[in-house]
């Protein structure tokens, strides 16, 4: 009887533990809807992605961006300055066909692009951007640094990072 109880507790604790890990480290959800196909939802627990990264080859653990060169320091200062400044529209372009809006909303930069047949919305959490820039080593960005930034930023919860809507397709990437 005791053995059964122990087994039941162990079995119950596994999904609870996993749920706790997902809740504490976050979950990136990729949601793709097409007009004529199935809806595909891929939830990626960040703790799992981080664990998988340990087995990945070296080239998959880093993103080469040599063009960033000496700019991360400037970019970091820009991000810090933007975090300090008041909310408002930074850039708005309307050329009749397309409308582009870049706005500072709280600790995020929201980019909205809309045209006749497509709408794109991107949110850049400034805290996460700052952390990602900190992980740049002069030529490469560490993927682990990006995952850390995504999981540590509490402001990201429930945020649609990317939302693309066209006539036939809708793609949403959000963090939970």
């Amino acid at each position, binding site marked *: 009887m005791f053995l059964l109880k122990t087994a039941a507790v162990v079995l119950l604790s596994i999904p609870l533990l996993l749920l706790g890990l997902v809740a504490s480290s976050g979950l990136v959800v990729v949601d793709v809807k097409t007009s004529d196909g199935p809806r595909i939802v891929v939830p990626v627990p960040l703790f799992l992605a981080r664990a998988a990264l340990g087995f990945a080859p070296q080239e998959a653990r880093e993103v080469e961006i040599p063009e960033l060169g000496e700019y991360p320091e400037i970019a970091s200062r820009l991000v810090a300055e933007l975090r300090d400044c008041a909310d408002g529209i930074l850039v*708005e*372009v309307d050329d009749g066909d397309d409308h582009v809006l870049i706005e500072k909303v709280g600790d995020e930069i929201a980019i909205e692009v809309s045209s006749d047949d497509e709408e794109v919305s991107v949110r850049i959490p400034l805290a996460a951007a700052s952390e990602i820039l900190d992980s740049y080593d002069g030529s490469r960005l560490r993927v682990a640094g990006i995952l850390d930034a995504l999981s540590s930023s509490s402001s990201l919860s429930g945020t649609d990072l990317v939302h693309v809507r066209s006539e036939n397709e809708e793609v949403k990437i959000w963090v939970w």
Partner: protein
Amino acid sequence: MNRTLLAVSLALTFAAIPLQAQTPWIHIEVDENEADASHVKVNLPLSVVQIALEAAPEKIVDHGKIRMNHIDEDLDVEDLRRMWNELRSAPDSELVTIQEKEETVSIRRQGDQILVEVDNRKDGDTVHVRVPVTVVDALFSGEGQELNLKGAISELKSLRGDIVRVDDGETKVRIWIDEKD
């Protein structure tokens, strides 16, 4: 004791409000009049512009100084600097006036401001530029063919109101600085 603490924290709170409100923002608005016209609005804190300037290619902007000969070979910054040094100490007056049949260009000093006005009667184009003397001073504080853009932006922080207004009949451009709270 508690009252003193409350008074101090209240005073600090109210003291912080004007400081926060004094962040200067530069606004650029471009409006085209024609059908399918473009409308562009840019609003940025000057501090952000100053940092962004550092990201410009070194060939053109080095340590906040813009090398004009890479942009316009005909523009001689040294000549302009010499001219400015002659004109800057002039009292309030018309510094330059060019009157042609269809166009009048006037550059005049009014207090600590330099006003540039272009009026093209044929096309109806008008240009109004208002720049404080200290901004032009800072701009020409570079050496040789360099203009000190960083210094000029730094001086712009104390300016409020319209700097540039251009209306060429088809496009209206307005650049101004204010405080966004």
